[in-house]
């Protein structure tokens, strides 16, 4: 499952932006253009899927709305999740019908009144086909709408002549007929056993990283085994990887691509039970303790952990190239592209060298319009640019600020 499209309205620096996403996405733009705000929209979805109020407060409460817009303009985020084979399930066991979920459209609109949030609209639409022998025989959408914390369900197409009970699973019909009697704050927080897709877990599994090598050197002692945003628990994460023989083998192989001089990594406990680690290098007789490891090495160790060893369907990384030598960028981009075949990867970058190893179709440019709002464009849609890219490379076009050239004409 991956996000095919995201639509953002009145969120941080964005007034209105729609983006079609690929498996691998590279977000570029000038300083303060809105790259991190774009990434924050995904974090916001993750946080509200855990807790509505906490999610809103974490992202600034009423201040995540754009102050240049009128106060009655609601903030909306809509995402369309794409499908894969895991969406298929048996609809009617007796008649061998299968139900195939093609896409899930989720939208959340909120506004603020007297500094407290107000849910304007929350809806989710499951587009599905009923198939027999892989042939589509019926299509419809199940629409769930949240009004005042009561969720109502309906089919988008009302049927007068089709007997839905014949092939639509009873569990779906029950939702529509009975609706959901209990009060729920948000649909995104509500487990729906009738829908055989763990779509809410998708948002919960969004991973965001903004590594700071200085924090990665010594475990922060919170005991979490999931890699934290800044990499503060990297030693614990490494310990878990290295304790598993197969993971250790794979991790050290991948590290050797970028850092061929590293032979071994050991994690050890300090007196206060916090973890540190040391690297055995080909060059030195004694291992190097993590406080003395270079920032670039630390960033690479954290990146490989995040890309290959953390679970989740989507990974967002702020400036993965930080402190890393440009000669390694081709391998770094190659790793991110490889991982994007299994989970969606979104990165921000200021590096022209990184861009030179990316495909133009994966690049999204964020810039400001004449009113100061952030806007997103895809340079590949500008025919004029392609000529220059072939001649000069994407990086040079980016440095010369011509990625938006076609849009300005």
């Amino acid at each position, binding site marked *: 499952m991956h996000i095919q499209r995201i639509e953002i309205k009145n969120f941080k620096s964005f007034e209105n932006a729609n983006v079609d996403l690929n498996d691998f996405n590279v977000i570029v733009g000038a300083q303060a253009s809105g790259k991190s705000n774009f990434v924050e929209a995904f974090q916001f979805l993750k946080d509200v899927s855990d807790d509505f109020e906490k999610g809103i407060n974490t992202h600034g409460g009423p201040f995540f709305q754009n102050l240049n817009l009128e106060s009655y303009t609601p903030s909306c985020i809509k995402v369309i999740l794409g499908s894969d084979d895991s969406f298929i399930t048996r609809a009617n066991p007796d008649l061998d019908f299968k139900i195939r979920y093609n896409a899930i459209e989720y939208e959340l609109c909120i506004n603020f009144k007297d500094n407290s949030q107000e849910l304007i609209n929350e809806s989710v639409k499951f587009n599905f086909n009923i198939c027999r022998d892989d042939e589509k025989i019926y299509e419809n959408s199940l629409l769930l709408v949240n009004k005042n914390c009561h969720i109502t369900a309906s089919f988008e197409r009302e049927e007068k002549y089709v007997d839905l009970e014949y092939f639509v699973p009873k569990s779906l019909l029950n939702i529509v007929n009975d609706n959901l009697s209990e009060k729920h704050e948000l649909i995104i927080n509500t487990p729906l056993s009738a829908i055989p897709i763990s779509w809410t877990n998708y948002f919960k599994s969004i991973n965001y990283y903004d590594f700071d090598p200085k924090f990665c050197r010594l475990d922060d002692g919170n005991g979490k085994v999931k890699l934290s945003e800044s990499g503060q628990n990297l030693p614990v994460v490494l310990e878990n990887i290295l304790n598993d023989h197969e993971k250790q083998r*794979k991790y050290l*192989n*991948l590290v050797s*691509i970028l850092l061929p001089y590293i032979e071994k990594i050991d994690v050890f406990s300090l007196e206060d039970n916090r973890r540190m680690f040391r690297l055995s290098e080909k060059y030195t007789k004694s291992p190097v303790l993590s406080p003395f490891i270079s920032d670039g090495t630390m960033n690479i160790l954290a990146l490989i952990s995040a890309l290959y060893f953390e679970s989740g369907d989507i990974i967002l990384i702020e400036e993965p190239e930080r402190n890393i030598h440009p000669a390694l960028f081709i391998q770094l981009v190659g*790793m991110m592209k*490889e991982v994007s075949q*299994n989970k969606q990867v979104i990165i921000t970058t200021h590096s022209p060298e990184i861009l030179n190893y990316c495909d133009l179709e994966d690049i999204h440019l964020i810039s400001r319009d004449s009113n100061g709002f952030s806007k997103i464009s895809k340079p590949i849609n500008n025919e004029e640019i392609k000529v220059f890219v072939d001649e000069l490379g994407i990086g040079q076009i980016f440095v010369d600020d011509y990625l938006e050239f076609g849009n300005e004409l």
Partner: protein
Amino acid sequence: MNCEFFIGTSQTEFRNLNIPDNTEDITKEIFDKMIKDIFDSKKDAPIEIAKNFDFNLAIERNKSFKYFLEKLDRLTEK
């Protein structure tokens, strides 16, 4: 990834892959399919394969590989 890396690995050493004694007919596509179930990363695979690479076994199992090496040797001799 080159099949030549693969054909030198021994059956017992290398993750229970059923490598035939004659690897002439293993195409790139067959090779990719064989390692797909073993490695989830195409970047990890060649490094692991290289660790188990046996030059003599590779020559024994693949005439084409042997031919190119002989060619190379002749070029080196010149």
